[in-house]
């Protein structure tokens, strides 16, 4: 396990390096001049040149890349062109929204999906199985932003139960912050929960067909005990895989939801930074997200090993 993890760490770092080259060169070809965007239509050429120098984008490409990578290695993400504050501060502010949102959504989705999936699997072929899985099918098919739009109109505009959007900041109180994240988390979580429930069910069904389930039944354990004590843990591997993927998606793939709820999250930071050509911010966030995906994958691997002792030694 340890040498395996060491190897994973090494490939992870190589992946990051490759990612940094890709991100940097992709953004290099991005048309548009950040200085021009800052100063607008009437800016004089001198003003533009002065600003470019201030931003440091008058340097040659390679020098800028090496500078940037060296900075990354020491935790310095550079300074934002537009905000002229350290990129790391910008990211930190946004992560304070995106991370809790992703975690909340993941928690909601897991809390809904696991029991539903196990229940449906244990009732395979019955009406309640067909109904819950039919609902899950519909859930998978709903675009989350459409769902979010509907939620806003019902719960925020109609019933005025929660804010329609925006984020007050955690300093306004945990409860307020959670209230602001509730609808976005629900709209992110439900389609994910539908997927996870389906995965859980099919993983459970597969496990329930295994020989050791029969062994457990032959011991005299009733169905329910077999389901929870023997089947669930074995079914966790595919479920964990999907959860890992979903977490990565939730952290990065929420631009649309962040737009619908005008949450100051990572997705919107990047979206805005791309349109303002604040490339250094884009680069920083993308690298952070890539690193997160790699870390989550490793974490999932560790979870595999916790769930399945075979993987502790096999690797």
């Amino acid at each position, binding site marked *: 396990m340890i040498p395996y993890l060491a190897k994973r760490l090494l490939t992870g770092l190589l992946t990051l390096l490759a990612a940094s080259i890709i991100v940097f060169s992709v953004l290099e070809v991005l048309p548009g001049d950040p200085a021009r965007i800052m100063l607008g239509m009437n800016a004089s050429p001198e003003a533009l040149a002065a600003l470019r120098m201030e931003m440091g984008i008058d340097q040659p490409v390679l020098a800028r890349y090496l500078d940037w990578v060296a900075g990354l290695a020491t935790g310095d993400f550079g300074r934002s062109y537009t905000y002229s504050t350290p990129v790391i501060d910008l990211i930190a502010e946004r992560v304070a929204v995106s991370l809790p949102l992703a975690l909340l959504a993941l928690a909601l989705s897991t809390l809904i999906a696991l029991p539903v999936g196990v229940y449906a699997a244990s009732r395979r072929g019955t009406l309640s199985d067909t109904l819950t899985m039919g609902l899950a099918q519909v859930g998978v098919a709903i675009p989350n932003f459409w769902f979010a739009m509907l939620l806003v109109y019902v719960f925020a505009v109609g019933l005025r139960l929660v804010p329609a959007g925006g984020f007050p900041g955690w300093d306004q109180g945990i409860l307020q912050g959670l209230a602001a994240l509730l609808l976005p988390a629900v709209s992110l979580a439900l389609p994910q929960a539908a997927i996870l429930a389906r995965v859980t069910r099919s993983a459970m069904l597969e496990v329930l067909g295994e020989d*050791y389930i029969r062994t457990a039944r032959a011991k*005299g354990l009733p169905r329910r005990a077999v389901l929870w004590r023997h089947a669930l843990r074995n079914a966790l591997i595919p479920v964990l895989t999907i959860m890992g993927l979903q977490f990565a998606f939730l952290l990065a793939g929420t631009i649309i939801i962040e737009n619908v709820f005008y949450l100051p999250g990572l997705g919107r930071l990047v979206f805005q930074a791309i349109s303002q050509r604040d490339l250094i911010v884009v680069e920083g966030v993308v690298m952070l997200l890539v690193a997160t995906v790699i870390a989550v994958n490793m974490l999932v691997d560790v979870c595999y090993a916790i769930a399945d002792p075979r993987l502790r030694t096999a690797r």
Partner: protein
Amino acid sequence: MSLLEIENLSLDIGGTPILKDISLSIGRGEVMGLVGESGSGKSMTALAVMGLLPHAARARGSIMFDGIDLVAAPEAAMCRLRGDDLGMVFQEPMTALNPVKTIGEQVAEGIRWHTGANRADAETRARAMLHRVGLPEAQFPLTRYPHELSGGQRQRVVIAIACALKPKLLIADEPTTALDVVLQAQILKLLKSLVAEDGMSLLLISHDLAVVADMAERITIMRHGEVMEAGNTKQTLSQRAHPYTRQLAEASTHVPHRPQSPGQSKPAPLLQVKEVVRDYPVRARRLFTRPAPFRAVDHVSFELPAGRSMALVGRSGCGKSTLARMILALDRPTAGSIRFQGEALEDKSEDALRPHRRNMQVVFQDPYGSFNPRHKVERLVAEPLHLLDRRPSPAERRESVAEALSQVGLSPADMEKYPHEFSGGQRQRISIARAIITRPKLIVADEPVSALDVSIRAQVLDLFADLNARLGVAYLFITHDLTVARAITDEVMVMHDGRIVERGPTARVLHHPETVPARALIDAAPDLERALQRQGAA
């Protein structure tokens, strides 16, 4: 009164009848053998007793166990019986244990569930039980996970689970089929002693008459969901009153007729294996230390003359299949040389191998897995024609396929069918047809009959013998089953831990083994005649 009394049990699954009016009884402390070929319904009978039938199954009739009708018993009552009064051992030890729970947990679980014992007490009992099945705590602590044990050890754990509460009836469904002969003998011995010590009744299910003959006092023979014959083991198997019983018994001791091995003079060697070694790298478990590689084949040398039939015998994992793959040039040796028709194979490119491949074909064990299910028989059998230097025209191709099919006793019309339309024995014939279509000099057969039912196995062995005689093709049989070796080989090599430990004419090795591994294999091999003799002595 008997412990288990099955009367007129009928069973259908989704409308398909599986069992028809089965009646069977087992007395207290009695060992009953239940024998039948695949599809005879013997496993379903066991599952019906355990109340673990598939969802769609419907049972009629009665199963009286210790005064309770199991067919009518509610699920809760069955849960109380299972694991307490009824224990069951399954065929596949590799999958019968939950991989994420320790063996201690799995043995103790049933004890806690039924007796309400606390964790410590249950573990003490589990420890004792594991000790009884030959897994003493010193080497096998309760915290071991199943994947840390070998197949035989896992089967012992399964037996410990089944016997932990001293059930009145133990059902063992093909408990040794997945194990090699030596392990089989050990497990059977273990079952025998447990049954004797605890006074359990045992329902032993097997396809192997010899196994049952050795263990059971009474025997029931099933076929197509019906009981053919039942009675005292020795009597039934010696008298063979029922035609099906006779057919089974004869098939399991069948020796094909072979003309005397072609010429006593030593023909030129077809295959020469010299000092062949094959190492596999082992994954590092610790950082910075590279573990020594695993040596699967260890300096093996032998020669196979043209037209001769040779057996390579050994326990599972001894390296015999690895050796076969290297001979077939599907794998390359780490060291040593393999010469076929005088030319070295180990360093040839795939292109340079073509003329040799034409003369060397293969037949695999699994008649299900050895065909691409999406191709018709014609295409499957014709595949090696790819090796010919000149591509045959479609008509020539069909002609060759037709000829090969008729040589293995199938009809040329069969070439239009898909493999799943054939039975297991027929499929093995197709695989032999594929192997002979290029008129090879050597066929390597890796366990070619071990997945087949006894009666079909006899027919396929006949076919092998016949082709050897007619086409003069040499065989290398890879097998753990000595009856195969006895039936159709001239010479036997015994392989153990990667080395060839003994080699000689078949009769000599089988009757007078000289080395310990060879003797162990031969002693452990079930033999119907010997078993019946022993039964008589008992």
